[in-house]
């Protein structure tokens, strides 16, 4: 069964890798080159359907949608990556320390965690934005902090199991100190659950950014981001449906690619 499952999963895993490298390529290209200036408005080109010169058409200000998707996806990715970095590094630190040492510190942090996770994350993000105002930096900060509890919980759970294992006892007998045990001996053992969760975290961050920007609370105009573009496109669904499809599909392909890769990793691929 293992072999069978493995070989069939291969297809999805490879598809995920292909999709991920495709979107990453588009985004990287977008940092250096876009066919047109993504923010340049052209009165003559308002709401034009896809054509040879504008493969994905133009928007309500006559801007090239392909250029805007390339640039906007870049913005979304950078924000998402920053969110995961903040969330994961703090979360791993908190989870490792609380999981390994336990005690009252663990109790307090986990209670706090429980309360925080009882708020749906989009709601908390909205509260943050309403407190500190909209904008990309605030989103990164707010969502980054919101990601801490889930990573802390995951890493803590792993640590609680792993710290009882005999190899940790062995390391103690060998004379390894607590920090060495935590970071050299135990932490590498969490990579099997940590790696897929980083990819899933990136996906969630992409979706969260898109959601907030869609509500007009994230990236501010005229900068493009995938959510921002969707929110602008909403009003033109009737006349130029291609406008909404381009950024929307970009989100779908990104999230699909990453989650297929993450699923493959969980199943021991790669």
């Amino acid at each position, binding site marked *: 069964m293992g072999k069978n499952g493995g070989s069939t999963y291969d297809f999805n895993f490879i598809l995920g890798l292909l999709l991920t490298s495709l979107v990453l390529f588009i985004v990287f290209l977008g940092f250096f080159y876009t066919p047109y200036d993504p923010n340049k408005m052209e009165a003559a080109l308002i709401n034009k359907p896809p054509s040879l010169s504008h493969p994905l058409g133009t928007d309500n200000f006559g801007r090239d949608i392909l250029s805007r998707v390339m640039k906007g996806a870049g913005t979304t990715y950078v924000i998402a990556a920053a969110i995961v970095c903040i969330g994961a590094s703090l979360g791993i630190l908190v989870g490792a320390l609380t999981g390994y040492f336990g005690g009252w510190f663990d109790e307090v942090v986990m209670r706090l965690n429980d309360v925080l996770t009882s708020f749906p994350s989009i709601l908390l993000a909205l509260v943050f934005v309403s407190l500190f105002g909209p904008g990309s930096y605030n989103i990164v900060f707010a969502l980054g902090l919101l990601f801490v509890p889930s990573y802390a919980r995951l890493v803590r759970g792993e640590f609680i199991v792993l710290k009882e294992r005999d*190899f940790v006892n062995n*390391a103690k*007998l060998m*004379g390894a100190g607590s920090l060495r045990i935590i970071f050299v001996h135990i932490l590498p053992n969490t990579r099997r659950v940590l790696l897929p969760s980083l990819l899933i975290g990136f996906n969630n961050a992409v979706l969260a950014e898109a959601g907030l920007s869609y509500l007009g609370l994230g990236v501010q105009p005229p900068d493009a981001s995938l959510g921002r573009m969707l929110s602008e496109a909403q009003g033109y669904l009737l006349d130029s449906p291609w406008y909404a499809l381009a950024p929307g599909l970009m989100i779908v392909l990104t999230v699909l690619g990453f989650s297929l890769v993450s699923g493959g990793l969980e199943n021991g691929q790669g």
Partner: protein
Amino acid sequence: MGKDETLLCIEDLTIGFPTGKCVKRVVDHISLEVKKGEILGILGESGSGKTITALAVMGLLPAAARILRGRIQYRGRDLLTLEEGERRRLRGAEISMVYQDPMASFNPLLTVGAQVEEMLRLHAKHTQEEYRALTLKALKEVGLTEPLEVYHRYPHQLSGGMRQRAMLAMAIIAGPKLVLADEPTTALDVTTQGKILQLLRELNEKYGMSIVLISHDLRVIQNTCHRAIVMKDGRIVEAGMTQELFARPQTKYTRQLVAAAPRLFSDGGGLRVTCAKNTSYKEQREIFTIQNLNVFYPEKGSGLLGKKRRKQVIKNANISVLQGETLGIVGESGSGKSTLAKAIVGLNREIEGVIKFNDVAAKGKGELAARPQMVFQDPFGSLNPTKKIGWLLEEPLKLQTNLSKKERIARVREMIRQVGLTYEFLERYPSQLSGGQRQRAAIAAALIVNPKLVILDEPVSSLDVTIQAQILRLLKELQDKYSLTYLFISHDLNVVFQICNRVCVLYRGEIIEIKEAQELLYRPQHEYTKELLESAMVKMGNRLP
């Protein structure tokens, strides 16, 4: 329906798991017969195909397994060509099975009573009250003295022995003619093991039920079965009447098994203890002593303000260990053996009393002067799976010595040779090693810093018997070479008597007896020690002198 009627007849059975293009055969041209009223033993190490054979008879093979050829006939009917509905009617009513792991084999969400009764409901028509009465009767039959209470319990609320009995009740309640018992005693304590085997024999005598007993433990088979079959790598190596078979084994493999099986009770009525011949230890001084040691297990208080409670696990222990000896610590699971070991090496700091190494006292939370090292039961758990063997061996040198990188590597290479592995293993991860190789690596990691005292916590319990013997031999060699002192913890009396000079019996956290191995064997003082010895004997079909 004579006494000699053949119930089950397996002919030329071959079972394989397709992997890619080739098929891995796990059962290879097996033929055997089970007569009415007999107990047939199938002996084999893990992976020998004994469980798969039983599952094939039940029609419960894993989905990936394929029956490649052969026939399984039950009272003249070929089970493999039987229609599914017919076959289902046979399961439980005619042939039933006692599974290896009773905890996993019960549904955790239903009461034990409901699950035992379900078997009856599927095969017999009675009223509600009759079902219940019959279930209670069956529970009583298998020696559960409080059947009504067990009936309403959930599987996790029973002890291992009780679960195994309940599993047995479920197997016999519909009155089957053949019971397949797969390692029914493996997870149990030595005293409970004896009782369960006794029960099997009683059921066999009382109801004429045929039993196929599957085990990796030669003593279990030898003690219980009329006839036995030895399996290895999916083939039948040897078969015959039990006493005959093991007294005069014909094949090399069976001889190996008999030789590897613990010596102590194996040659007829005569007893021979093969304790270490090391007599010089008597002149040696004490390497370490424990005085009035109490060890506690911290229990988690409830919530932030919960009071810190602790449970006493070891009560007032006094032990002194002499230079160069092997002191055995024997006890059933839950007797506190491992807790004691952890306290000695300093992994458990919840202690009161004195632990002295070479006259340097370490009290309570103090640091230990001379570090004893430890070899753990499960080598897979004690070797960090993300590190290579070479890294794992070098780590203690990095932490405890000032050796240069070059010196460390030289030391690691020397040590890996000493435990009988080659340099190539240094570049491997623990998961790429077999169980025996892993335990060798773990021993190397413990010995690399030249400890004087090594605590061996069930070092061979997770290994097959042939490997067990090899590891025990290695431990003895290393002891002579480095003049080591061992503290050998085990639940297996036979292993203990093979390697230990002195033995200490632990019962519910208290040391009830501590004396020379020979002395303990011939003149046990405490009732519990006698019981422990007796159950080990009974399994061998012998009686105490």
